[in-house]
């Protein structure tokens, strides 16, 4: 607390100090309110994580279909590439198509929340601080 020296008599200085105390009191209460508001928005953001609307059915269908199809497609693509460059026709395609099918099922299960995301499923070992 630094005065600019001009405050000579005691009453004005006391007033000054009182004002400052009131100001810091107000600031503290404001900060508290802000903190509460922040916590509230965070909670809200967590609560409405899933988009809701009349389109839910079709949206979910398109989402699940694309998740599954993309898994199989990537498997097939990788298999084709492997065969093309290593000349292992047809084994690369067979194996990777099957793996792609599994990945597609995994994608779908993740999309509907039956299997945790890679980040959540992995439990941090005791003693190792998780990145979160």
């Amino acid at each position, binding site marked *: 607390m630094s005065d600019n020296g001009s405050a000579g008599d005691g009453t004005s200085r006391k007033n000054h100090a009182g004002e400052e105390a009131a100001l810091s009191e107000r600031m503290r209460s404001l900060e508290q309110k802000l903190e509460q508001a922040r916590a509230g928005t965070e909670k809200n953001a967590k609560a409405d994580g899933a988009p809701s609307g009349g389109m839910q059915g079709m949206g979910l269908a*398109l989402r699940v279909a694309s998740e599954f199809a*993309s898994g199989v497609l990537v498997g097939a693509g990788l298999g084709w590439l492997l065969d093309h460059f290593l000349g292992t026709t047809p084994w690369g395609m067979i194996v990777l198509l099957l793996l792609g099918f599994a990945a597609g099922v995994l994608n779908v299960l993740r999309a509907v929340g039956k299997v945790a995301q*890679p980040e959540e499923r992995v439990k941090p070992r005791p003693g190792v601080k998780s990145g979160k």
Partner: protein
Amino acid sequence: MANDPIHQFQIHEYFPLGNFAGMDFHFTNSALAMVANVAVVTGFLYFATAKKSLIPGRTQSIAELSYEFVASTLKSSAGTEGMRFFPFVFSLFMFILTANLFGMFPYFLTATSQIIITFALAMSVMLVVVGYGFYRHGTHFLGLFVPHGVPGAVIPLVSAIEVISFLSRPISLSVRLFANMLAGHITLKVFAGFVVSLASLGVVGVGGAIVPLLMTVALTALEFLVAFLQAYVFTILTCMYLNDALHPGH
């Protein structure tokens, strides 16, 4: 031709841009739509925030709301650390949202109904995730594919499946956005086409045309919802993938 539901997605070349690396580049209607998108978003945000009044006006409110919306989405799924990607995520969201909404104007091309556009967007997301993941965590980033608590014998199998699942992300991300926009616009066009062809049948036809007309009106509203929802879904999945890059389960 007027009744062809696919006609709206055709690409026309306006003028050539030149020949680079053996490929012909043209300025197309798709490019024009995207340039217009970017110009509208940038111009809107610039003018909306130019005044910077404490009590926001209507346009400033919209700009602030969009900021708040994307920021809270990013924070809730990637943590406060994810805010370093805010410019990237916000640009993606605004671009996809305006591209989707531009498609709702008659005679405008929906840029996001072209698979190559959505795929390029999804690939840019995945490149950021992989690049930042390796930059930040080095080889630890590969831990994403090796879950703990799995018996050693099946780790190769599980890792292979995880890798394929990871590689399929950009495809599912791009196909979802593209398929939603394409399917929605085709449905809209088909129902609108019913109105025309029924109305040409005479008095009974005009009476019957009311049903698809109502359907078209309802579908238009639905399309506006889908336009927003798909931009949101793309954004939230981007945030989840960025979360993987920030904390690869370790």
